């Protein structure tokens, strides 16, 4: 794959930090760039802040094949294309990390790691979520020594080896199919008696002779000396403890939303931002949220894109009202 598309490290436009932007979008995943595309096309003065590269979680997905209109695409490429499309419509992109926000005032402030600040009438939060850890003994110790959260990055290091995947959702099975290109065997350990992943993914893993399955079981410990050697598992129905020998453990058990910074926003019990799904508005006027960081039923690229579009149009309406109010004064 020879990628030659533009890169965030080479911004094409100058950012005027003295500007008051119509909207600042925090996060450059599918939701953020979708919001950026809609905001730019609405001719809002919009800027997106991303700390590393475009795509967010989708960038580490080997193949995306459930996005309508795109039969199959590498996640990293999709991220680059989102960025390209958004920039084409005039979105400004900053490669920086958001370190703080002041959202309560009518004029919002977003503080960056570089020491600069952005001011805007509205903010769209699209910070996504990170992979949840197991929180069992041995996990931290063996990160980088057999424990991984990124199949695209690390599967190649397990060529002809035996690995364990923990999880039963789309990510676990999808990434498992990618790991199967390298590993000798893959044992999926899942706490329930069936997978919640899409049926098409289940059909694929069940048909692949490299896969073994352990249901109704949870990982209690990751065991090894210098590297991962086994996992200790407990059957949740019988309480039986056993060990599964393995060279690696890939953990795909769900997500933790990146919302800790937004203390003034209402969140659900898991930390996802509560929004009005009609317009993606939060409990603070002028603050919208979209994508995997919000409380909702389905977290997929397609729903993130829809959230982003709705948030951008809602932000546009909000900013228009604010500007009209200001001009009447």
């Amino acid at each position, binding site marked *: 794959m*020879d*990628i*030659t598309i533009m*890169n*965030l*490290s080479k911004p094409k436009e100058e950012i005027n930090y003295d500007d008051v932007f119509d909207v600042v979008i925090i996060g450059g995943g599918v939701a953020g760039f979708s919001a950026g595309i809609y905001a730019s096309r609405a001719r809002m003065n919009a800027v997106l802040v991303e*700390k*590393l*590269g475009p*795509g967010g979680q989708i*960038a*580490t997905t080997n193949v995306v094949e459930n996005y309508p209109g795109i039969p199959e695409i590498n*996640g*990293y490429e999709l*991220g680059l294309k989102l960025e390209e499309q958004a920039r084409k419509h005039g979105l400004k992109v900053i*490669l920086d*990390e958001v370190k703080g926000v002041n959202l309560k005032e009518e004029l919002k402030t977003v503080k960056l*790691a*570089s020491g600069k600040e952005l001011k805007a009438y509205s903010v769209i939060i699209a910070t996504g979520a990170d992979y949840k850890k197991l929180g069992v003994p041995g996990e931290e110790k063996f*990160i*980088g*020594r*057999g*424990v*991984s959260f*990124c199949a*695209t*990055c*690390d599967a*190649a*290091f*397990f060529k002809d080896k035996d690995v364990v995947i923990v999880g039963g959702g789309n990510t676990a099975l999808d990434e498992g199919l990618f790991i199967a290109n390298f590993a000798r065997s893959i044992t999926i350990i899942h706490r329930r008696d069936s997978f919640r992943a899409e049926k098409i993914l289940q059909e694929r893993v069940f048909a692949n002779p490299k896969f073994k399955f352990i249901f109704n079981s949870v990982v209690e410990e990751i065991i090894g000396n*210098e*590297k991962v050697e086994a996992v200790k598992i407990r059957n949740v129905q019988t309480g039986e403890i056993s060990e599964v020998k393995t060279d*690696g453990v890939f953990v795909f058990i769900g997500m933790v939303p990146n919302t800790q910074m937004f203390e003034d926003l209402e969140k659900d019990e898991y930390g996802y931002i509560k929004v009005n799904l009609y317009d993606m508005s939060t409990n603070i006027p002028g603050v919208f949220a979209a994508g995997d960081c919000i409380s909702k039923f389905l977290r997929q690229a397609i729903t993130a894109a829809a959230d982003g579009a709705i948030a951008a149009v809602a932000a546009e309406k909000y900013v228009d009202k604010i500007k009209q109010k200001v001009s009447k004064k």
Partner: protein
Amino acid sequence: MRKLSNFKVTLLVLVTILFVSSPIHLMGVEKAIGKESEKNLPAFIFSAKDIEGNKVNLADYLGKKIIVVNFWATWCPPCRFEIPELIKLQKVYKDKIQIIGVSLDRSLGDVKNYRENKFNYPIIWDRYGEIAYLYGGISSIPTTFIINTEGKIVERIIGARTFESFEYVIKKYIPKATNK
């Protein structure tokens, strides 16, 4: 232990008796890397040719600069996200640090054809995974080692980081008087 072809390895402190062949000493280094209690043990100081054919010798930087060894591959999205950050780090701290990129790609062509960024630091293709092996075995990328001016591994960082994150770490190891 893997055969070490065309590849010179010198353990800084124990010098030539450890050179290349002893599995005991390799195991010792594996233990040394990445554990808080065992930080500050010597890093393997190697020399190798970069993808342009130029010789890169870590010994040349010892005592002068902090050495940053970054393991990556073109197939790895977080590694690619991190590269502009490392380029900026090398640019801003050019007199204080030297970054060495170690590619774990399957072919030299993959590395040479990578054109997303223009590197301002050398890239070595670790064809047989020898450098990765000597740094304790790499099973997650990006993994970045920070080696202080005394040749000791002081940080092992797993996962992509921003310029600011790297800057925060390396500033701890730049001697105060010369701190940027």
